Structures are given as C-alpha cells and as structure tokens.
C-alpha cells in the first residue's frame, strides 16, 4: 500500500517539476524582460519560502521574522555593489555617505570590498544571526505562539534599527543597486538581469536539493518528531535545542541568499524588506503551496506573487482581499495546502462529492488493497 502511495506521490511531484523546469527554460525567450525580471524575483522569493517550510512545515517553528535574514542578505549584496562602484564619488565611498557627512567607510563595511567575503557573508551572516536568536529562544524552551511573537518582535527591532541608521546604511532610503556596476556592466541592464534570472533559477533548484537532503532520512525524522512531540524526542536522548538551532540557522541562510537575489533583481534593498506583512506573506506562500512538501513552498511563492502582480495591474487595490481570501480558504478547506491536498485524497474526494467516483467504504485500507490498488 505504502509502496503504491510513494509512487503516486512521486508522479505528482515529478510532473510539477517538469512544468516548473519547462517554464524556467522557456521563460527567457517567451517573456519580455520586464516579466522575466518579475519571474526571477519571485523565484528568488521561493528560496526564503523553502526555509520557512523547513522550520515551519517540518519542525513546527512558525517564524514571523524571516524578513530579518532576507534583508541582511540583501544589504550584504547591495553594499558590495555600492562599494565597488564608488570610485567616482568623494572619498571613494558610496554616494549616500556624503549626504550625512560621513568621510570614511564604517569599519564593518571594510570587508565588503572583497567579492569572496561578500559571497560568503550573504548566507553566513543571516545564518549566524538566526542561529544566535534561535539558540537563545530554544534554550529557554520558548515554543508555539510565544516563539512566533518573539520572532515578530525581533523583526520590529531590526526594522526600527535599520530605519534609523542613515550614517551606516542610508536608513529608510535603503541601498540602490540598479545603477551600480558588476563585471563592468550596469546591474540594472537587460543582459545582467537575464544572467541573474539564470543564477536564481539554478539556485532555486540547488536550494531544493539541499533542503531535500536535510529532511531525508533520520535528521528529517527528528525534525518531524520535534514538531509532533518534542518531549518524546528529549526522552529518547536527543537534544532538540541543537536540532532546532541548526534548522533555524539553515532557514536564515536560505533567506539571506533569497534576499540578495531579490535585491539585485528589484534594484534596491531597504528596511521595507523587514516590515511585518512581508514576513507573514512568506508564511502564507508556504501555507497555500503545502506545508512540509518543499515543492509546495516554491510553487506557492512563485504563483502567489505572480498572481499578485497580474491582479494588481488589472484591479489595483483588490489584491489584499484576494490574498486574505486565499489564506482563509487554505485554513478552512485545504489545511495541507494545495500540493498537500493533491497528494492526499483531495481530488478523489471532490469527484466523489459530485458523484463522479465511487465512495470508499468503512475500511479504506482493505478496500484499497483489494480492489483499487491506489493511494490510501
């Protein structure tokens, strides 16, 4: 029975993958560069969604503060681009510093002159910050809704701090990247944007493989164990604090990569990345796509955001209602998300409701084994 179930699941997942990869390959030729750029942005958002799925879908940690790590990655990338493109400005430092009378690059930005350092910092700094916050919270056994509130509070702390630091990071204006140079080309130029699309598409798939590797096998089973019954995991001899810290840190690192890719494609990073609604949206993408499915997180992030931009163009101001409605629909009717619904018995049950398929009787397992030979 379970063997058949696995095969059935694989077919669905495989077909979604084929669609996704076909879209990615076809997109650069089919879409105008404006749309391509949007798709690239949404693909980069799916990396932060993968992290949310790891901590929420698998481990049961509902973080409302992933925007912190997303923005940190974005700031690292943007500052590197600003520094490398600042040779014609006074004191050879990014232009905005002059506005606030800063004459010397703040010391902590010095290492960002190095591309290799920046490349690592984009994911290591958010991962370290997440690990530190996570460790302190998890060590004190703060769980459930208290954890969510705490992550949201941290988000607000970071938001306010970043907003107020004009002299260090240009405060509320943020850092622009589209007029900076990389490899002698303008970051905002069409050819660069096309390249970023390919990098993003590649990294989404790499991030999915990485997340899959993390959750397969016993490590992933412990995460699920922590989600379902943490004390039991403890009494079996595992220390949940370490496992939760690791996975929260991984999600932070993914958020950082996501933020950097989003920044270079949208042309700016600002404290707006750390607003409360944006971090909640990340959770909605995963909830709609399907918790604990990984692929669902990617699909949720890409399709909801694409729908958002299409709807906003056609009917401005109506998107918030649609998004709210979508979330209510998922909470009430599809608690497992769309992909979870498909993988479960969703389509079959729906057909039954319209009388198009025979009902399964009292002992589904017996009936399925003997007659249907299908999923449970």
């Amino acid at each position, binding site marked *: 029975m379970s063997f058949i179930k696995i095969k059935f699941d694989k077919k669905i997942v495989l077909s979604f993958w084929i669609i996704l990869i076909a879209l990615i390959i076809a997109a650069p030729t089919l879409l105008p560069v404006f749309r391509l750029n949007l798709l690239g942005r949404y693909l980069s958002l799916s990396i932060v969604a993968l992290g949310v799925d790891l901590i929420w879908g698998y481990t049961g940690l509902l973080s409302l503060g992933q925007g912190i790590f997303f923005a940190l990655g974005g700031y690292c990338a943007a500052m590197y681009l600003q520094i490398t493109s600042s040779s014609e400005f006074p004191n050879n430092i990014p232009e905005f510093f002059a506005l606030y009378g800063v004459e010397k690059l703040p010391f902590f930005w010095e290492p960002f002159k190095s591309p290799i350092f920046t490349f690592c910092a984009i994911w290591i700094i958010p991962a370290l910050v997440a690990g530190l916050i996570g460790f302190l919270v998890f060590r004190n056994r703060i769980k459930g809704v208290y954890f969510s509130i705490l992550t949201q509070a941290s988000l607000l702390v970071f938001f306010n701090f970043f907003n107020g630091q004009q002299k260090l990071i240009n405060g509320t204006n943020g850092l622009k990247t589209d007029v900076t140079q990389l490899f002698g080309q303008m970051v905002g130029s069409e050819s660069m944007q096309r390249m970023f699309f390919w990098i993003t598409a590649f990294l989404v798939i790499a991030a999915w493989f990485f997340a899959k590797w993390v959750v397969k096998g016993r490590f992933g089973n412990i995460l699920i164990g922590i989600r379902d019954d943490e004390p039991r995991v403890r009494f*079996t001899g*595992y*220390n949940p604090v*370490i496992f939760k810290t690791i996975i929260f840190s991984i999600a932070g690192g993914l958020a950082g990569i996501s933020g950097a890719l989003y920044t270079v494609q949208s042309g700016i990073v600002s404290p707006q990345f750390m607003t409360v609604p944006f971090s909640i949206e990340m959770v909605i993408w995963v909830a709609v796509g399907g918790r604990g499915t990984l692929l669902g997180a990617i699909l949720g992030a890409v399709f909801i955001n694409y729908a958002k931009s299409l709807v906003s163009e056609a009917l401005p101001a109506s998107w918030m209602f649609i998004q709210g409605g979508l979330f209510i629909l998922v909470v009430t009717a599809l608690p497992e998300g769309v992909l979870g619904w498909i993988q479960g018995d969703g389509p079959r049950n729906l057909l039954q409701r319209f009388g198009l398929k025979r009902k399964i009787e009292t002992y589904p397992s017996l009936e399925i084994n003997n007659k249907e030979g299908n999923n449970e």
Partner: protein
Amino acid sequence: MNNKDLLNLIDITVSFEGFLALNKLNLNLKKGELRAVIGPNGAGKTTFLDVITGKVKPTNGDVIFKGKSLVGRKEHKIARLGVGRKFQSPRIFENLTVKENLEISVTTPKSPLNLINKSIKDEQLNEIDRLMKIVNLAQKVDSKAGSLSHGQKQWLEIAMLVGQKPDLMLVDEPVAGLTDEETDLTADLLKSLSGENTVVVIDHDMEFIRRLDSNVSVLNQGTVLCEGTMETIQKDKKVIDVYLGRPED
C-alpha cells in the same frame, strides 16, 4: 544503599506550590530487578517517573543512578545515561513509519552530525528487525505509526524503549486499553526483559501485576507505603485500607 543498587531515590520531596506530590520517598532498585509500582490515583506514581527522567526537579532529596546524581541534569542527558521511559498513553511519532520510529530509538550517537552524515549502521538495522519480530510488527514496517491499532502502538513504544538499550526501563501503564491476550503477552515480554535490564512497571491492573510475579512497591500520598511480594502486600492492613479494599478510588 549498596553498590549493587542501580537506582536510589533518597528522601525525594516534590512540592507543587505547597501540594506534596512526593513526600520523602525512598526507593532502591537492584540491577536486573523487575519492580511493580502501584498506588491509588494521585499517589505520585507519574511524578515519581518525572523525577527520575528529569522532567520534574525534586524540591528535596537526591536521585542516584549508577553512582551519579541525576538531579539537575537535562532530560536528554539522563536518557543517554541509560534511563528509558514509556509513557502512559502511547507516545510514538505518528507521522513516521514504524521503521523510522525504531531508527530514532536505536540510533547512536544521537548527534545531528551523525544523523545527517551517515547512513544507519547494519547492526542497528538488525536490531530493528529483531525488535519488530519481538513485538509482532514485522509486517507493518513501512506503515505510518499513526495507522496502528492501540495495542500495536503500545508495543511499538515498548520496542522503541528496548531499542534505546537503557539500563533502567520505566514503563508507565503498558497495558492500558489492551485486550487480555495482549496484556498477557506484554507481561511475558517485560518479564523476559528483566534480568538483563532493570524494569519498573507502573500499573493499576492487579491481574497484570500478579502475572509479573515481581516485588511490588505501593505508593500512597507521595510516599512508599509498603514493599514486598504480591502476597505480602495483599495481606498488609494499610494497603488494604488505602487501595485494595477500595479499588474504585
């Protein structure tokens, strides 16, 4: 206290805001012993397990296990020292398969690095096979644990407990909700585990306790009322007063 003892509870007192769940409880267990613990509701049986496993910190007194004090240690450290626990209602990971549940229990060392890097060792797979045969779950290997019957869940949890290879097994109401036949099989299983392991069984079911044929400690109001074989305690006046005479309590 002598050095043949595996576990000594010395004057354990647990106070929940003034209410004494355990009151100067003393109990010693020898290596390889099978011990039944009975008592009326609220006698402190589960708190007694909570103290040993580190879930509850005693207000007073000490727990000595293999010569080391357990008081103040974290739950997972106590588990790694060799204390295993089966909970009152079956606590298994329902979204994992039977095999995955057992993998979690037999895996050593229990560090994240070991889990993510290495595949499970052959001897651990053999151990899982052995355990599944003992508890009759060999055909359910790849079923979700949540789909098992209540009795099978109880046994899976016992198998997980054995798989942990603890020196001390604490078993809380293993036969609650089981059929008579399953109860008998469980009693035989626990008896076969003692000798090599030290087993503490907590239960209400007198038939089951009798079948265990072990020493019995009777708990009442947070303290040990009486200790001895089933015959001895059944004749004890105090025990009859608080417990056996009024089984409905």
